[in-house]
């Protein structure tokens, strides 16, 4: 007899979703988490789109430990001295799509729910390797000891070391990954309501471009209940190419004049960092193997589409679909790759693979360096000049573009970028 029906590697949202679901139907589940507690190694921007967690848990979202429900979306395009913003406010009551979240708090809570259902969550324990018998996965190795199970679910997050060792994915290239630097800054609940024009419980999500010194990437600001999450994300490859440190980009960003009044008087509570898998559909590994499945970030399930960042809803949904597939395999006592491939069917029929396929060319659009410096400065210049009244008479728009904008860039290139954007986004 194996030690458990299922072993889960990693107590992030994906592993916890699977543990919750399997334990709820009475399966014997052991989840290993290397951190002090679930959530202690996990960082997000961020805001969670709520559809997946709503489906999984039978609890009103208002009772989950979210920070604020997002009602205000802002995109800010910056250059060194200026900023230009687009903003969407939604005043419809009770119709929230997403909520801001702090993962050390949320994941800990989620883990306690899974434990209530009967899952064994073993923290401070790192899985060092998979345990194989006759080429089939039969468990894991922890501190030189083998612990066996019928099926292992790998939900170990973005670094995805175990699938690499087993040959299920290729090595990452430096343009597959974005790294981040983030701080949580305390401002107080009322102060946040005031500074961001929010009602109690409502939140804002703001994305910034043009503040990364030409590095492919951007900034974010999410309002939590009493704090804000603020940070930058940058493509590894582009940081190295531009010889610019993410730590310095972060520092210059939070002291940019655009943020001066917003952050004034705030008290920084924590500084953090984490990777994000951004290559989309083309970086997905082989997802099933004899006795093994992969879910969440470990499977490369992340989608970036302009200001929209989605990893958490993918992590939750793929974790619960993995649990469904695992339950079917356990019922039939067949843990082969062939049987476990029901997971692929489930993923293909869900938004997880549908969306990742639909947006598979978006990384190409997003990795265009012109988006991060040239276009932000052009946009700011155009709007600045548009709003300028200084007693001189302005030229016609066309001669303005000809004499100013097209000096920075050939209009054909702009046209090409627009076409690419329309085709791929």
């Amino acid at each position, binding site marked *: 007899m194996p030690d458990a029906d299922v072993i889960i590697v990693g107590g992030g949202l994906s592993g916890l979703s699977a543990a919750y679901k399997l334990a709820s139907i009475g399966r014997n589940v052991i989840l290993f988490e290397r951190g002090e507690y679930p959530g202690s190694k996990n960082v997000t921007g961020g805001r969670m789109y709520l559809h997946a967690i709503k489906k999984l848990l039978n609890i009103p979202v208002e009772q989950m430990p979210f920070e604020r429900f997002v009602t205000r979306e802002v995109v800010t395009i910056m250059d060194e001295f200026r900023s230009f913003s687009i903003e969407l406010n939604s005043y419809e009551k009770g119709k929230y799509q997403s909520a801001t979240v702090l993962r050390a708090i949320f994941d800990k809570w989620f883990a306690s729910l899974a434990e209530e259902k009967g899952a064994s969550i073993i923290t401070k324990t790192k899985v060092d390797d998979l345990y194989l018998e006759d080429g089939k996965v039969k468990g894991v190795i922890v501190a030189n000891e083998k612990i066996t199970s019928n099926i292992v679910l790998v939900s170990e997050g973005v670094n995805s070391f175990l699938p690499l060792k087993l040959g299920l994915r290729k090595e990452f290239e430096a343009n597959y990954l974005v790294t*981040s630097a983030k*701080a949580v800054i305390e401002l107080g609940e009322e102060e946040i309501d005031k500074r961001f024009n929010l009602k109690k419980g409502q939140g804002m999500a703001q994305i910034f471009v043009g503040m990364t010194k030409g590095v492919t990437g951007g900034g974010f600001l999410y309002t939590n209940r009493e704090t804000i999450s603020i940070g930058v994300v940058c493509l590894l490859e582009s940081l190295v190419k531009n010889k610019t440190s993410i730590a310095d980009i972060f520092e210059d960003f939070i002291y940019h004049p655009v943020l001066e009044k917003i952050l004034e008087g705030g008290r920084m509570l924590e500084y953090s960092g984490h990777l994000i898998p951004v290559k989309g559909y083309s970086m997905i590994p082989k997802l099933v193997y004899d006795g093994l499945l992969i879910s969440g970030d470990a499977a490369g399930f992340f989608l970036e589409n302009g200001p929209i960042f989605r990893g958490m809803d993918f992590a939750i949904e793929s974790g619960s679909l993995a649990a469904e597939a695992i339950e079917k395999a356990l019922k039939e006592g067949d843990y082969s790759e062939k049987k476990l491939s029901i997971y692929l069917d489930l993923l293909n029929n869900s938004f997880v693979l549908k969306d990742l396929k639909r947006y598979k060319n978006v990384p190409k659009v997003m990795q265009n360096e012109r988006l991060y410096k040239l276009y932000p400065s052009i946009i700011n210049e155009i709007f600045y000049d548009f709003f300028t009244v200084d007693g001189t008479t302005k030229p016609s728009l066309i001669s303005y573009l000809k004499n100013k904008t097209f000096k920075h860039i050939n209009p054909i290139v702009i046209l090409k970028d627009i076409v690419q954007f329309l085709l791929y986004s």
Partner: protein
Amino acid sequence: MKSLGSIKRISLDERLGLTSFNSDNESHIEVDNERCLLCKTKACLYVCPTKVYYLKDNKIYFNYQACLETGGCIVACHKLGNKGITWKYPKGGFGVIFKYG
């Protein structure tokens, strides 16, 4: 309204002081400086949010206790540098402990 502290220019060291760690006395990072000597890009210097790696007298030094465990350095070093870094997660229970995340 309760009084709020100041956010005046916080250095990286001060930022790091805000984050909790349970540091192992053994390092989870190793660097082979023979490889670094021949490395043209020094990729490790740019991708780490806490600047764990730094260059002094032509040698790469590192402060493993400041590691936030992103794992970005391995990919940057192995794909764009000269493969000087060996890196694994700290032992279970060790390393960074995010309170907010």
